[in-house]
């Protein structure tokens, strides 16, 4: 196996090695951070399978097709004492951003599910299977899903069961069915239940007529009800490995799921508030054009490479940022319809744009084991610039968050950015206040500027609408 020799371990570099807190479930190996580099150990218990999969020729094919993150082999010396009795050491390229399935819109979860099934089908052709089917093993480059766990690939033994079937259903199929059958987005449930949605839980919601489809019956209803089976016969049969699952049946199950999932559509496909918003009358084309120009100029002047677009809607200003030279944009919005459209747009135009679900007033917290397994949004924020167009009034007036706190949250997100101030005279704010008392005496441009100047330097501003909407470009010291 070719290895790359690196400089010998020193006390200083050993200090820079830290295990990734989210990588502990599979004892076959672990992810380590070496400064900003991503290393993976392969433990002796997984070494035989690792060699088998390397020899199968599967890995380069998957990497070439963009389905799997590339890997290179390193000398174990690099990890020093931290390597323990590891058999191999790999390095993977560092990803720009790690997202979680509770942040993915429907289309993203669907694309990830199809990738997971395609990986199984491709692997089986090479006599390889996967040890699991967790959505956390998939990340996005733009809207293209990529699998990141090399160690999931294991030798396939004829007759072996699909050990990841239950996990696949809980983490991909059931959350997709929630939206496809009921029109309920998976995000809130997934946030509260990071292992996904159980078959028994989904089954309990299904009306009788929906249970008669063969696919729903087997993957959801029966799996859910048999999961609770305490029959000693069944348990004994499972425990003694006397049951087998022939390869053709395995492949048929994978293909059936693939065909089914590829066809799923959200049950609530009528235009949502924000899709209509994109074509709203108060939102004239000249105004949108002025905003696009401002954003483009800001991105190119600051050479911003990674941009976060908070309240991205269908991605108009994310696209403007990309056209102005940004290498990638992560867009956030809470409207599912807009996110679905943004995802389709990024896919058809091949954009380095990843639209994700976010409720600004409830961003992802640190979750999972030790509250360190899945990191919250703030810990993952490493953008060069942040965009917040037509956002601030929804948070300050729609959600009662003090204006200074909204500005502080945004300026904390990145060292520079563009924030749009929407005055009370604007029709959208008038709409927000139509049914409620105006308890916001300090919501005005003067106070906004004061809040922004307390935290950053205003480098540019421009009024973009007759109603007085104004864009502010800010810059603060890098902490």
């Amino acid at each position, binding site marked *: 196996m070719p290895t790359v020799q690196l400089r010998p371990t020193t006390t200083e570099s050993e200090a820079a090695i830290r295990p990734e807190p989210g990588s502990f*479930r*599979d*004892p*076959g190996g672990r992810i380590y951070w070496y400064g900003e580099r991503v290393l993976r150990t392969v433990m002796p218990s*997984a070494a035989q*399978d690792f060699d088998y999969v390397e020899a199968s020729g599967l890995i380069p094919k998957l990497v070439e097709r963009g389905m799997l993150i590339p890997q290179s082999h390193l000398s174990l010396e690099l990890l020093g004492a931290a390597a323990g009795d590891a058999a191999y050491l790999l390095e993977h390229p560092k990803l720009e951003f790690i997202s979680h399935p509770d942040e993915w819109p429907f289309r993203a979860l669907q694309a990830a599910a199809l990738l997971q099934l395609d990986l199984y089908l491709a692997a089986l052709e090479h006599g390889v299977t996967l*040890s*699991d089917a967790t959505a956390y093993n998939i990340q996005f480059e733009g809207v293209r899903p990529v699998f990141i766990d090399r160690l999931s690939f*294991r*030798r396939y*033994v004829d*007759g*072996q*069961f*699909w*050990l*990841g*079937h*239950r*996990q696949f*259903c809980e983490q991909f199929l059931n959350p997709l069915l929630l939206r496809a059958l009921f029109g309920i987005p998976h995000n809130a449930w997934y946030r509260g239940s990071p292992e996904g949605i159980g*078959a*028994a839980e989904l089954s309990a919601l299904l009306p009788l007529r929906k249970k008669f489809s063969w696919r729903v019956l*087997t*993957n959801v209803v*029966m*799996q*859910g*009800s*048999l*999961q*609770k*089976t305490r*029959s000693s*016969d*069944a*348990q*004994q*049969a*499972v425990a003694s*490995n*006397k*049951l*087998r*699952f*022939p390869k*053709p*049946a*395995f492949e*048929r*199950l994978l293909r059936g799921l693939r065909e089914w999932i590829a066809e799923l559509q959200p049950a609530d496909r009528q235009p949502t508030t924000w899709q209509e918003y994109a074509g709203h009358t108060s939102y004239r084309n000249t105004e949108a054009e002025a905003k696009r120009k401002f954003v483009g100029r800001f991105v190119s002047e600051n050479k911003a490479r990674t941009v976060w677009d908070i309240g991205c809607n269908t991605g108009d200003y994310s696209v403007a940022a990309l056209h102005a030279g940004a290498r990638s944009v992560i867009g956030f919005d809470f409207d599912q319809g807009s996110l679905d459209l943004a995802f389709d747009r990024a896919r058809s135009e091949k954009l380095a744009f990843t639209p994700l679900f976010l409720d600004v007033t409830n961003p992802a917290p640190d979750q999972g084991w030790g509250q360190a397994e899945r990191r919250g949004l703030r810990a993952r924020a490493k953008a060069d610039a942040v965009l917040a167009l037509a956002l601030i009034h929804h948070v300050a007036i729609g959600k009662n968050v003090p204006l200074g706190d909204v500005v502080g949250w945004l300026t904390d997100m990145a060292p520079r950015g563009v924030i749009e101030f929407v005055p009370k005279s604007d029709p959208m704010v008038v709409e927000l206040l139509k049914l409620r008392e105006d308890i916001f005496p300090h919501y005005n441009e003067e106070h906004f500027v004061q809040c922004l100047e307390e935290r950053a330097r205003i480098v540019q501003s421009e009024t973009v609408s007759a109603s007085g909407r104004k864009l502010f470009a800010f810059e603060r010291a890098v902490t």
Partner: protein
Amino acid sequence: MVQKKRVIAAWLAVNLVGFSAAAHAYLDPGTGSILVQSLLAGIAGAAAVVSLYWQRVKAFFVNLRKSSRDAHSATSTDNDGI
């Protein structure tokens, strides 16, 4: 209901005897999933058996027709030979 489940589970357990590797199972595959897969395997197996017998039944009739045709053509040849 419980009785029914028990019968299904027992049927699956008895019906599908063979070998399976539970290697690398750091993940709990879940009883529900294993039993569903066993059912799918059982159906695939049953379909294979049915298909095999169907081939035999088909082959029987094809052969029957063929032999009757052969017999017929043999008779014709005999006739031609007159």
